């Protein structure tokens, strides 16, 4: 059965998936900006 994840966990998975594309700080920054833009 598929695990049901919180949005926080989905974002963690997203970070792990993209962690090799850039340094950790840049990725954290992009995710922060994305979360802010989703508030609009």
């Amino acid at each position: 059965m598929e695990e049901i994840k919180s949005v926080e966990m989905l974002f963690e998975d997203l970070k792990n998936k993209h962690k090799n594309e850039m340094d950790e700080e840049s990725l954290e920054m992009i995710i922060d900006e994305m979360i802010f833009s989703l508030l609009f």
Partner: protein
Amino acid sequence: MDSSIQTIYTEKIDRFNLAFKRDTPDRVPILFMSEMWPVHHCGLSAEKVLKNPLLFYKAFEKTFSEIYIDGLYGLGNLWIKPIFDALNNSGSYKLTDGIVNYEDKISCYMDVDDYNSLIKNPGHYILNEFFPKKFKVLESGDTISAQALEHAYNAFVNYRQANLELIDKTENVLGIPIFARTLAFSGPDMLLDYFRGFEGIITDINRIPQLFLKASSALNLFITNIKMRIYNTPEDGHFILLPLHLGSYLKPKDFEKYYLPFLNQLLEMYTKNNYTVCLFFENDWTPYLEYFDSFPDGKILGIFEYGDLSKIKKKVGHKICIIGGMPISQLSYGTKKECIDMAKRIIDECAPGGGYIFSTDKILLSLDDGCFENIRAVHEFVYDYAKY
């Protein structure tokens, strides 16, 4: 950056920096505030340039070869729609000429019962309670949710890249600074804009004031920490843009209690860390000018939409650098002579003593917001006339 462009860029930045410090530059800097105006001026549509960011740059290149400017305030919410599309959300915002604006009533998914959760941990509340309500596709937390979030991430990365490229080319090829490095909000404004809507927030202030105050405080710290992570190296000549919404709708007595402390806290946190903050005073702030004396010392700027700018400068010019003055209604409907006469009066009244930046009173959105010939004539006049 080419050395001749570097010289032009540096001159413009230095001009603004002196004005930001409420000092006197070589002449009054001219700030251009627009979103899609240059695009339409070049006969392009929002749809076209949002599909091809290079066309947006071309519109800047043509427009600012015809109209003299010293800098652009920022870019606006460009390229953001695909992020919402990826999360199947089409109900909480309104697309106006390619720009995303939120829809007050239907975009506020927070209930009164959610206050305690938001106060306890704003980040946790936003991610795990607010987003699943706003974006139904995230509610199930399954593979479909993960795929939607992945699509939204890719759309966001594209959006970010398009923004960075437009900023990079405008600054490095045209030599025109773009000042806003990030957008921030105060806690009360976040509650109004994103969570509770106007009706909700006014009711909350009256019925559950303590929860409103605690939530505003929690959001103030939460958003400032995020913004200082995103824009972690304050630069001279660039600012954090802080639009102000709720304040001017409150009675002065309520303003003092429910808005001013949070605005002052933000200003203190940013200026203490050497950031320049540009407050966008939306609506008429004339009744609240006396409170500006409580602002901390630092590089604080204010764009004013309404009010007599000359009186505003006299009253608060010792605390903040004043931006604005030229009514877009005049630029739209006045004759060239009337516009130049108006610009002369504004310069004569606001420029003495420095700490003043010439601009429009509102952002130029559609082509109707300002006649090209009038804008060009006014900027040529200010360039020649407003020398110290």
